[in-house]
């Protein structure tokens, strides 16, 4: 059954785990992308690249105010208009005001997590403005009226049959199992939208301060379309997207391409600095850049600045054993899922209670940290978040009580010794002469619902150690 992103956490996870089609699709896609990343990184000096990416991003975030001012100055000098939005509402209002001023009735968008973050599509629709997603995967989920499930591969959860049925229903095309045919349908449909739209909206992969340039990384060409064909082009950039120089942008472009899909570079890198110049046949009459905060300063204020280093490559998603099982929708109504999403979704949210399960949706295995090109210590950030949540009273009472009991038992040598002996006796009884325990009594039965509990060894470690100490003391030597 498909995952309902608005359902409670446990429901979402259960829905994901009991959907065989989703799990098959996730398996294939994450395995494929993870393997491609490994191959691409083997071709180059990966440690050196990661160090460089880390440095470039750290420098940018550490110098964020100055770089943002420089970016603004240069964008304006290039003929762009720059708008600052403290939150999602201000960003939406800015876009709506621009659309209203120019009587925009149709908007085309290239793939943009940030536009979903601010709920732009809904706001535009409410104002009677038609919005069309042009990234092939986003176009498909828009037709299906679903949110995307992966930062890079929005329809990772759909099979060809699903997409064919969807096109048949919504576009009146005949059923097919040929991806090229589906693609051609999308191309033609979207082509008309591109040519008629009055406004193009994109996100921003990198914003170069030194030259006032907005960089868009795409494989399909829709980034080019939205930034070139409409009279008005609006780029929405999270404030953390700024980088110092073109050299930095070229480095991050290559790092993101290799990490995300194993490509040396994406097919298109659109670097827009300003509107159409006199004498040029095409290009927007107006170019606007919206610099969006919406919780990013809060992330800095709360000490999670490392999370702002992210270049949105999605490598952590493909490495994460949790993501690979439950997919993106299980993380809830957020465009940011997977390990990085588990950190920034709760942080960007106004309400600390919202998405509070996400930092716990991890085994802390560290696979994400191993693949992150910016070397973000995601497990540490997850632990810090958990710690904050627990101290804020967010963990279940039973769990807190159990942990307090555990702390008490392990804090004193004698108490610990008795606890171990009692436990071992208890466990041997439960094992009933067998090799393992199939069912522990409540509340521990949740552990044995899905797995057996091992039988204790004939002697405890403490007993072995004590015996060993006595033997060596008896022989008058410290070591054997």
């Amino acid at each position, binding site marked *: 059954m498909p995952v309902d992103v608005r359902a409670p956490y446990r429901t979402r996870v259960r829905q994901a785990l009991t959907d065989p089609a989703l799990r098959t699709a996730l398996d*294939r896609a994450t395995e494929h992308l993870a393997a491609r990343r490994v191959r691409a990184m083997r*071709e*180059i*000096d990966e440690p050196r*690249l990661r160090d*460089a990416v880390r*440095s*470039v991003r750290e*420098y940018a975030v*550490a110098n*964020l*105010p100055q770089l*943002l*001012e420089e970016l*603004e100055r240069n964008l304006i000098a290039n003929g762009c208009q720059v*708008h*600052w939005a*403290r939150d999602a509402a201000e960003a939406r209002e800015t876009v709506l005001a621009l659309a209203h001023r120019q009587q925009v009735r149709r908007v085309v968008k290239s793939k943009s997590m940030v536009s979903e973050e601010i709920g732009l599509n809904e706001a535009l629709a409410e104002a009677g403005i038609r919005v069309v997603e042009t990234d*092939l*995967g986003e176009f498909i989920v828009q037709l299906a009226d679903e949110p995307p499930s992966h930062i890079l*591969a929005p*329809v990772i959860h759909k099979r*060809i049959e699903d997409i064919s049925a969807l096109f048949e229903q919504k576009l009146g095309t005949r059923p097919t199992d040929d991806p*090229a045919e589906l*693609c051609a349908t999308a*191309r033609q449909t*979207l*082509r008309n939208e*591109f*040519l008629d739209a009055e406004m193009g909206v994109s996100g921003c992969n990198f914003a170069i301060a030194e*030259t006032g*340039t907005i960089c868009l990384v795409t*494989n*399909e*060409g*829709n980034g*080019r379309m939205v930034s*070139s*064909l409409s009279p008005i082009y609006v780029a929405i950039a999270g404030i953390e997207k700024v980088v110092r120089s*073109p*050299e*930095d942008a*070229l480095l991050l472009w*290559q790092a993101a391409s290799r990490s995300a*899909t194993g490509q*040396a*570079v994406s*097919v298109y890198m*659109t670097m827009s600095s*300003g*509107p*159409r*110049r006199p004498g*040029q*046949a*095409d*290009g927007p009459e107006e170019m606007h850049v919206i610099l969006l905060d919406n919780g990013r*300063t809060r992330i800095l*204020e709360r000490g999670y*600045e490392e999370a702002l280093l992210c270049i949105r490559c999605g490598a952590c998603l493909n490495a994460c054993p949790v993501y690979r099982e439950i997919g993106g929708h299980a993380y809830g109504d957020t465009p940011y899922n997977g390990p990085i999403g588990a950190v920034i979704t709760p942080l960007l949210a106004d309400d600390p209670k919202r998405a509070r399960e996400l930092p716990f949706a991890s085994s802390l295995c560290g696979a994400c940290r191993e693949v992150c090109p910016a070397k973000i210590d995601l497990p540490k950030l997850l632990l810090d978040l958990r710690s904050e949540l627990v101290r804020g009273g967010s963990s279940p009472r039973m769990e807190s009580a159990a942990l307090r009991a555990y702390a008490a038992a392990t804090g004193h040598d004698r108490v610990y010794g008795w606890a171990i002996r009692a436990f071992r006796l208890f466990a041997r009884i439960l094992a009933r002469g067998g090799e393992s325990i199939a069912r522990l009594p409540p509340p521990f039965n949740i552990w044995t619902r899905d797995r057996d509990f091992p039988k204790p060894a004939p002697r405890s470690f403490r007993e072995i150690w004590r015996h060993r100490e006595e033997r060596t003391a008896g022989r008058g030597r410290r070591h054997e």
Partner: protein
Amino acid sequence: MSDGRADILGRLRLALGAREARLDRREAPRPAAVIDVPEGRRDPHALTARFGESLVALSGSYEVVRHADEVAERAAERITTWSAHDSREDDGDGRRRDPEILSWAPDQLTPPDLGPQLERAGITLVVPEELGHRDTRLRLASLRIGLTGVDAAIASTGSVLMAAGPGRSRVASLLPTHHLMIVAASHVYPTLEDWFQELRRGGLHAQRLRQPGQIIFVSGPSKSADIELNLTLGVHGPRTTHAIIYDDAER
């Protein structure tokens, strides 16, 4: 929106200044290039070959001609082949029609007489003046073949760079199904970093990056793997990209 601006910048300065932000403020060291192209492989001949190989790996194609005079002939051949193929697909008859192509202006193409030579071969170059009218846009979008030069080519990634400019429309490399690129061998650089370093050293980076309004790197045909990870070409941009590389003996 100055309130928003002051607010955001103020909060950032406070947050970064208040505690020892655990980030490194220093200028970032970076590798000379992500992709290493060794000394022995940086001559024009090697770079041309590598560019071609890279492009092929991306599902593009290329050919190398020795002399600039051959470019027009090869370009005409490629255009008529594509045109005939498209006719066959559309109408099933493969009848030779005089192709019309979406193109940069002749004075922006190299070698300099490419435009006139193509016209003499019966190929019409459609050069957009403006895209303001819907009819114009639809007409331009109906042209299946695009012809452009390139500002630079990158051997290690199979990329070409095109900067917007008068007579150098963006749509010529974006709207058509087939994109024909004329590349001068002297414009092929080993890596992206090499290309930009030359600009920076010459103090040209501001002019070349900012002034055009938009510059674009294109590496092969438009792609998507969104549908069950199957690679499909020509999603929004061209499905076919072909480079004719000629030796202009400038370096």
